[in-house]
C-alpha cells in the first residue's frame, strides 16, 4: 500500500482561477494592495509626521502653473525653493501632495488617514461578520420559535435609525478609535445575519447534513464543519461589500466631526478640514476625496469579482 496520496482540487482553487480571469477584480486587487502597503509603510518612511506643523508652509499646493502668478492671485507666499519646473509646470518637490492649512504634509496625512479608514473598515467588517455569522447560523439551524424571535429582533433593529445611534454612541462615550469600528460593526451585522440564516436554512436539509447526523456529529459540529464552510461564499462576498460601506460611514462620521480626533487624520476629517477654503485650495479636498473614491471602487470591483468567482452555478454542467 503506497503512502503517497494525490492532492485534491478544492472548490476554492477553481474559484481562484475564475477570479484571476476577471480583469476588473484583478485591477481592484492591485490598487488595493498598493494602497494597503502604502498605508502601512508610508507614514513610517515619510520624513514628516502626520501632525508636524510647519507654519511657514501653509496651504502649499502640490503644483502650480507659475509660482509668481499663484502668489499674486492668492496673496500667499510660497517657498520658491520647494518648487521645480517640470514640463512648464512648477511642481512642489518638498511636499508632493502639498500642505494643509497648518502646514502639515498632505501625503503623510493621506497615508495615515488610509490606515485609519482601512482599519476601521476591516475591523468593522470583522465585528459585523463574527456577530452576524454566529447569530444567523444559530437562528437558521435551530429554527422554529427561537428563529422567529431572533429574526424579529433583527427586524426591530433594522427599523431603528442606525446613524442616529452611532452618533449618539460617539457623542456619549467619546471619540475613541476602537469605539468607532465597534459602533459601525455592531450596527451592520444585521444583514450578515439574515444572509447566513437563509443559507443555513437551505443547507440544513441537504443529505450530507443528514449523513453527518447519522455519523454521530453533534449540533455544534454540524454548524461549524458543514454549514458555515458552505456559506463562506456569500459571506466573503458580503464582507467585501461591508468594508467599503464601513469606510464610507467612517468618513461621513469624521466629516461630521464625530470620528477620529484631531490631530489624527482620516480621509473624512481631511475633507472636513479643507471644507471652508475649498474654493481657494481645492486640492485639500480633492486629494482625500479621490483616494476614497478609488479605494471604494477597487473594493467594489473585488466584491463583484468574488461573487462571480464563487457562484456555484458556474460549475459546468454537461
Amino acid at each position: 500500500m503506497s503512502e503517497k496520496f494525490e492532492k485534491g482540487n478544492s472548490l476554492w482553487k477553481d474559484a481562484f482561477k475564475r477570479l484571476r480571469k476577471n480583469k476588473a477584480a484583478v485591477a481592484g486587487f492591485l490598487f488595493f494592495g498598493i494602497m494597503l502597503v502604502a498605508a502601512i509603510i508610508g507614514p513610517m518612511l515619510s520624513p514628516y509626521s502626520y501632525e508636524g506643523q510647519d507654519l511657514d508652509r501653509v496651504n502649499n499646493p502640490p503644483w502650480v502653473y507659475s509660482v509668481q502668478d499663484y502668489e499674486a492671485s492668492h496673496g500667499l507666499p510660497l517657498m520658491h525653493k520647494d518648487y521645480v519646473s517640470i514640463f512648464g509646470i512648477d511642481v512642489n518637490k518638498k511636499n508632493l501632495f502639498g500642505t494643509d492649512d497648518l502646514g502639515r504634509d498632505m501625503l503623510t496625512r493621506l497615508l495615515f488617514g488610509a490606515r485609519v479608514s482601512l482599519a476601521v473598515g476591516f475591523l468593522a467588517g470583522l465585528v459585523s461578520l463574527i456577530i452576524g455569522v454566529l447569530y444567523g447560523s444559530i437562528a437558521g439551524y435551530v429554527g422554529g420559535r427561537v428563529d422567529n424571535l431572533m429574526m424579529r429582533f433583527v427586524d426591530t433593529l433594522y427599523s431603528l435609525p442606525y446613524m442616529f445611534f452611532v452618533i449618539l454612541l460617539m457623542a456619549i462615550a467619546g471619540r475613541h478609535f476602537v469605539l468607532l469600528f465597534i459602533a459601525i460593526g455592531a450596527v451592520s451585522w444585521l444583514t450578515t445575519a439574515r444572509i447566513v440564516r437563509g443559507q443555513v436554512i437551505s443547507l440544513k436539509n441537504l443529505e450530507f447534513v443528514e449523513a453527518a447526523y447519522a455519523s454521530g456529529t453533534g449540533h455544534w459540529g454540524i454548524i461549524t464543519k458543514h454549514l458555515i464552510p458552505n456559506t463562506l461564499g456569500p459571506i466573503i462576498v458580503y464582507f467585501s461589500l461591508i468594508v467599503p460601506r464601513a469606510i464610507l460611514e467612517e468618513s461621513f462620521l469624521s466629516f461630521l466631526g464625530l470620528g477620529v480626533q484631531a490631530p489624527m487624520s482620516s480621509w473624512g476629517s481631511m475633507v472636513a478640514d479643507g471644507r471652508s477654503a475649498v474654493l481657494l485650495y481645492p486640492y485639500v479636498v480633492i486629494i482625500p476625496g479621490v483616494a476614497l473614491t478609488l479605494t471604494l471602487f477597487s473594493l467594489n470591483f473585488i466584491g463583484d469579482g468574488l461573487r462571480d468567482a464563487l457562484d456555484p452555478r458556474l460549475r459546468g454542467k454537461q
Partner: protein
Amino acid sequence: MLEVRDLKVHFPVTRGGLFRKEKQLVRAVDGVSFEIQPGETLGLVGESGCGKSTTARAIIGLIEATAGSVKFEGNEIIGLTPKQQKKYRPYFQMVFQNPFSSLNPRMTIADVLAEPLKALTNLSKRERLKRIQELMEIVNLDPKMLFRYPHEFSGGQRQRINIARALAVKPRLIVLDEPVSALDVSIQAQIINLLQDLQKQFQLAYLFIAHDLSVVKTLSHRVAVMYLGKIVEVGETQRLYDDSKHPYTRALLSAVPIPDPSEEKERERIPLEGEIPSPIQLPTGCHFHPRCPIAEEKCAQIEPLLEDKENHLKAACLLAS
C-alpha cells in the same frame, strides 16, 4: 434483530387562511410493523408519499417518531435522549440517494470517511487513517484518492464513498435509501453487486428502499410494500413477485416495464385510476379503496389489518384470500 411495532410518524401542518387556521396532521407513517433478521435484506417499496423514506429515517433517529416502538436486539431505541441515542448510532448507518448532495463539497474524502470514526470511536489519528484506507479498498476505490474532493469523482464512485462511510463504524444494519436510482444503468449493476458482496462479507442487514421493483428483487430476501403510510403486503421476495395477494402490489408489478418487446406487448396491465391521494386527506377504511380495481363497499368502511394469507404472504386486504 430489528423489530418495528406500530411505528407512527405524524407531522402537524397548519393550513387555512388568515383567520381560519386549522391544525392538520400529515400521517406520513401510520402504524408500520416489520422485522429484520441479522444478515437479511428487507426491501421496502412504494410510490412517492407512501412513507418509506420517513420510516427509514425514523428508525435511524434522524426524524422523531410520534408513536410506536423500535427494538434493536431487544432494546427500545425510540424516545431516547440524544446521549443515549449516540450509543446505538454505530449499529445503524444510512446510505443516501443523491450522490451529489450527500457529500459535503468542501470536505476531502478523508474527512468524510473519518467523521463517523471521530464522533463514535476512540481510534487514534493513525488508526483512523489506516481504517479509512481499508474502507476505500473495501469499496474498490484507490486509497491514493483520499485527499481529493467529491466533485472530482463520478456518480458511481461517490456512491461507493457513501457506502464506505456507512461501513466505517462496523454497523449491523444499513438503511439504503434509493442508493442506485440516481446512477446510470451500467453503474447500477456494479453497485448492486458490491452491496451483495458486502452483505456476505460483513453479515450486514439491509433495509433497502427503492421504487425500482427489479432492483429491489435482486437484493432482497423479503419485500414490504407500502401505500400511504401503511404496509399493505409483506413476504418472501419470489413469492410476492410471483403471486401477490394485495391488489396494489399486483398493479404495481404490472406497471413495471419489462425490457423485452414481446413480453411487454402481451402483458396484462392493471391500470390504476386517479392519483395518489394527499396524506392529509386520507380515504376512510382501506386507504387504497378509491383506486382499487376490486374494491367493494365494505372496503370504504373497515380498515384492513396485515394478516397471513395464502402463499406465506401477509397482506392488508379484506378481499384477499
